């Protein structure tokens, strides 16, 4: 094989890779768009449909009447927001017991999620799924959002929303994949080790400011200083200086040292 054909070969791989990336991106955008669409009003048929889905997919752990079992907590009064958050982020149905339910590809269509949420909401009052206007951030103040984020969220999710470790293998996940609805729902319901921030202590406008800070400033972070090395702080900077930095200078030293021989 000549060197040009090798290069052409590699380029083909790159094109395929790019195409695949674009396809995934478009597909992903389509999925997230549909997830962000406003949930339609709950009806009696939805509740019935939700009950059916619940019995099939959730009752083994949460009990036939959602009263809770040894393998899952009761869901009476957790509210539609909790179900919507847990199921659209793919955390529920839980596939295997783990320290923490991980985010994964959702298993239910948006209509099915609405139905499940309607059913659980019908069992007892709880936080509702935020509406589209609840999620509007046009009037929100970015800087205030940042201040609230640093006060309430950064200690677990890190200053840049990259997530962090909690004790015993638990962790606060990265916020790079969360949609505005999931953010508000997470704050309303406090999944697992996350505290909840009810509207009484953190009013909706403040939640919107936080959402704005996460979406505008963290998920689409400008990088005035150049590569951010993952925004994990000084640890990655230290790794960088000891590998690339000192590495480059040692090579230079060896090169110059060999020169005058």
């Amino acid at each position: 094989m000549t060197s040009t054909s090798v290069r052409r070969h590699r380029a083909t791989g790159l094109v395929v890779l790019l195409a695949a990336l674009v396809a995934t991106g478009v597909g992903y955008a389509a999925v997230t768009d549909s997830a962000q669409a406003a949930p339609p009003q709950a009806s009696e048929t939805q509740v019935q449909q939700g009950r059916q889905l619940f019995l099939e997919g959730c009752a083994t752990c949460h009990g036939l009447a959602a009263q809770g079992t040894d393998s899952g907590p009761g869901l009476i009064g957790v509210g539609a927001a909790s179900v919507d958050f847990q199921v659209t982020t793919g955390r529920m149905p839980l596939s295997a017991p783990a320290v923490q339910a991980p985010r994964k590809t959702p298993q239910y269509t948006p209509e099915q999620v609405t139905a499940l949420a309607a059913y659980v909401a019908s069992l007892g009052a709880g936080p509702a799924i935020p509406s589209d206007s609840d999620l509007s951030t046009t009037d929100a103040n970015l800087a205030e959002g940042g201040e609230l984020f640093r006060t309430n969220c950064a200690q677990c999710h890190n200053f840049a929303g990259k997530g962090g470790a909690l004790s015993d293998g638990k962790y606060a996940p990265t916020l790079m994949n969360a949609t505005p609805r999931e953010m508000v729902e997470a704050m309303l319901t406090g999944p697992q080790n996350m505290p909840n921030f009810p509207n009484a202590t953190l009013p909706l406008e403040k939640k919107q400011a936080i959402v704005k800070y996460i979406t505008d400033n963290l998920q689409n972070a400008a990088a005035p200083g150049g590569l951010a090395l993952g925004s994990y702080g000084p640890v990655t900077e230290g790794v960088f200086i000891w590998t690339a930095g000192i590495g480059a200078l040692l090579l230079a030293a060896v090169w110059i040292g060999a020169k005058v021989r």
Partner: protein
Amino acid sequence: MSLIVKEAGKAISRADERAPISSLAKANLRKIFPDHWSFMLGEIALYSFIILLLTGVYLTIWFKPSMIEVPYHGSYAPLDGIPMSEAYASALNISFDVRGGLLIRQIHHWAALFFMAAMIVHMFRIFFTGAFRKPRELNWVIGGSMIMIGLLEGFAGYSLPDDLLSGVGVRIVAGIIESIPVVGTYLMFFIFGGQFPGSDFIPRLYTFHVLLVPGILLALVGLHLVLIFYHKHTQYPGPGRTNTNVVGYPLFPVYTAKAGGFFFVVFGVTVLIASIVTINPIWAYGPYVPDQVTAGSQPDWYIGFLDGMLRAIPPGWETVIWGHTISWNIFVPGLVMPGVLFTLLLGYPFIEAWVTGDTREHHLLDRPRNAPTRTALGVMAITFYGILVLNGANDIIAQMTSIPFNYITWFTRVGIVVFPPLAFVATRRFCLGLQRRDRDLLLHGRESGQVLRLPHGEFIEIHTPISDTEKAVILSKVDVPVIEAPPATDENGVVTPGLKGRRRRAKWSRFYFGDNVAKPSAAEIEAAAHHAHEEHDHEVEELTEGGKDIPARLTD
């Protein structure tokens, strides 16, 4: 034109008569320096220091060391209107509104990381080659002090911008000061001018960072260089290199050219990194507010081992005396341990000199294998340090690997006592193995892989002798005699004076040198050479007997 030149020449010679610079320069510029790439590690540290001084001065022009609270209205919108200290606001201002400010900040900070890393790598070179031995002990102490002071200087600089990350670091340091028994609280109040955080700390830290410590460092750097000049540089063993000569090139023009070139390499690499990789994005951390904290709060890497130590000590190790709590769990890892570590570091040349009882000067470097115990102690120290550094990043490692950080902490607690001794034993064995190999090389040459059958059926392997350079390098080994303990009493039954101390030293001496593989004596080398000669004769015999196609050389 020529008149000007003539006048200038006159002026110069007139000046020279009073201050004889040219003859001084002539002598010193021709000074010979030996050559090796590892001798340039210290230069990296020196050049980073120069870069720090230059960029630091630029930063002082705009930095405001004040903790007065002001609302921010600069061009970084995500912090618009947020109250913050003037220090933080001015650091943001440098980053976003001063021309080239962000680049200079990043150069300054990357250079600080380079400075510390280069000093440490340089120290490794000094340690493992025994360059700290007489007469250079003082320069070792100066070097070690510069690492210690550099650590403080870096911490001070990192804390100046008063951002959320550094504020958390200052809070921890305040806690460490408070943990000092009896005087801790008073000392903390004295340093901070009252309750934490107060409004005095940043201005005080500023004087410390831009005036006091750079002044001390500059003096130490100068002294360090003068001493290098005065002692002359050490050299690696090789043909013609002895303890009493220096083989190399003159300072001018060879070294000045090389060193000048290398300065620009260091400067270039630092600027390149600073222009493409973010360091310390203070705008993303936000201003320091005592009730805020971010996940993954870490110090710069050179403080990491101290943080690792703090994180490893189990909480709740405290004593209450007369209603006062002494927090050993902070005091010991925060102050006692670093104190012990730095004392050992600075004192090492004297410890080793005591063990060897060696009062000679050393200008020829040791090969690390020829000082196996020292080398092993060094690797042991690095292992110890490395584990602490890793534990300082336990939460980040946990996040990246999904290993719970409690496990990493436990791994540290156990590993810190298990792994350094293992590293010691393994390194020492490895060194002794290399010594044995050297001895074989010297006596028998290198195995050529060719097997020869002798006429009477015996098989021997042909060894090729090693080169003169290799020989000189191997022969440079100095066999240090093990000091024997004296008998308890002399022949007259008088108790030997200082028996205990001398016995202790004998023990240490055995620990250091007892297992060394002795360098072959001249007679042994002679005998071996003779033997090799015979071997060689056989080969020739065989070849001539067997005709043209070397039938006696077997490969199967």
